[in-house]
């Protein structure tokens, strides 16, 4: 496993243990970085898609962001992730992005 990810996954256990999601945080964080990162940048500072930095995300509340992830944004390349992510997983991703502490 990639060293930084291995380290990061330890830190990520806390929110998962708090009952938000049973998913593997390392897998989710990897998905955000690598697959969301295809459009939003590996560092989440934006690309074809908007930046996912806490500063930029301030324009939306938590529920709006969860719904954007799950249902996409029609008319833009943002796809609905509902076929691939559960609601708790989307919530976990939004929390991490809003707080800027994606493991």
């Amino acid at each position, binding site marked *: 496993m*990639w060293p930084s990810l291995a380290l990061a996954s330890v830190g990520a256990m806390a929110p998962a243990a708090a009952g938000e999601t049973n998913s593997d945080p390392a897998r989710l964080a*990897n998905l955000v*970085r*690598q*697959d969301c*990162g*295809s*459009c939003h*940048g*590996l*560092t989440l*500072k*934006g*690309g*074809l898609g908007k930046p996912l930095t806490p500063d930029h995300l301030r324009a939306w509340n938590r529920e709006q962001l969860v719904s954007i992830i799950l249902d*996409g944004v029609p*008319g833009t*390349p943002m*796809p*609905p*992730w509902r*076929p*691939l992510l559960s609601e708790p997983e989307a919530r976990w991703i939004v929390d991490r992005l809003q707080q800027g502490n994606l493991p």
Partner: protein
Amino acid sequence: MNAAKMIAKLTLALLLLMPALVRADELRGTGNLGLIIERATGSALIVDTSARKTIGRVEGLGDLSHASVVFSPDQRYAYVFGRDGGLTKVDMLTNAIAKRIVQAGNSIGGAISDDGALIAVSNYEPGGVRVFDARTLDPVANIPAVGADGKASKTVGLVDLPGRRFAWALYDAGEIWVADLTNVESPAVTRLTNVGKLPYDGNVTTDGRHYLAGLFGEDGVVHVDTWQQPLKAERILDGYGRGEQQLPVYKMPHLEGWAAVGDKLLLPAVGHHELIAVDLRKFTEAGRVATHGQPVFAVARPDGRHVWVNFAHPLNDTIDIVDTESLKVIHRLTPGPAVLHMEFTPRGNEVWVSVRDADRIDVYDAASFAKKAEIPAQKPSGIFFTARATRIGQ
């Protein structure tokens, strides 16, 4: 002369010869070299494609979450375009950074002019195209992409055209621009407006004649025949997904390295599990190829007999090999998690495949599909061989 003196003289002569001998041994060509992007670490591997091994590693290339590479005409220098606006000139012989600049906030790719003198970079932030001296990376031109709607636009699908020209598309504004930089101080830009919604990428046929841009905002492709004057943009494959529900797209298709084979061109269909074959004389649909998932890259073996296709998340562990005569998938490989890119050796005997989440490059025999080698790499993505230096649009 006594024996001792003789030996001393011989030794001295040998010592003097040594540097020359070492040098002769180290001299090498670059035609069989390649550069592999390690996207998470901002580094790149320099590989020897004949030996199938890594011969060097270059670090400090910035954010390479999206990266592309072009080569100098002498195939010594690689120009690496990073996500963070970084433009790095890498010396493939010394595994060192010859020069690096950060020319914008966020960029998507670049191209080198036919004479090798200019490097053009396509930017998301602040948009537009910037042009640099290929030798020094000093800025020589800046072409902001303000569309007919008056707004600054992200630019995509930047390629070189014969005659010191470049073509690119404006993502937000839906335009295609062709710029003649014969006189770099005053670029002559032809703007084709209102070509279609959200062009996401573009490329030119290997003869440098036909520029095509794929649309994301609607089912269709835009065609510009650069031999015609005045230039005009024509819609082809209109409504190619008509009547079918478009699937969510988890990774943008790429037209880079696209499959132009004989009289056909195979393009990824956005939001569909298929490739569309385009007749290269009439620019009409010539068939479809049902594939494992949504194609990201469709790369032709240099002889045109086969096309290798990889797919968007979550079906990205697979490669389909398509026979270009029958337009059927004749073989399916599952190299591993996150197959991101494929690059053929110049004569097409082998294909190198990056398997990102396995931290590995696989080398396949392009005829038998047998795996010939594995090369460790950290989160590898794009693979670029120096032979690209000789090709228009690459």
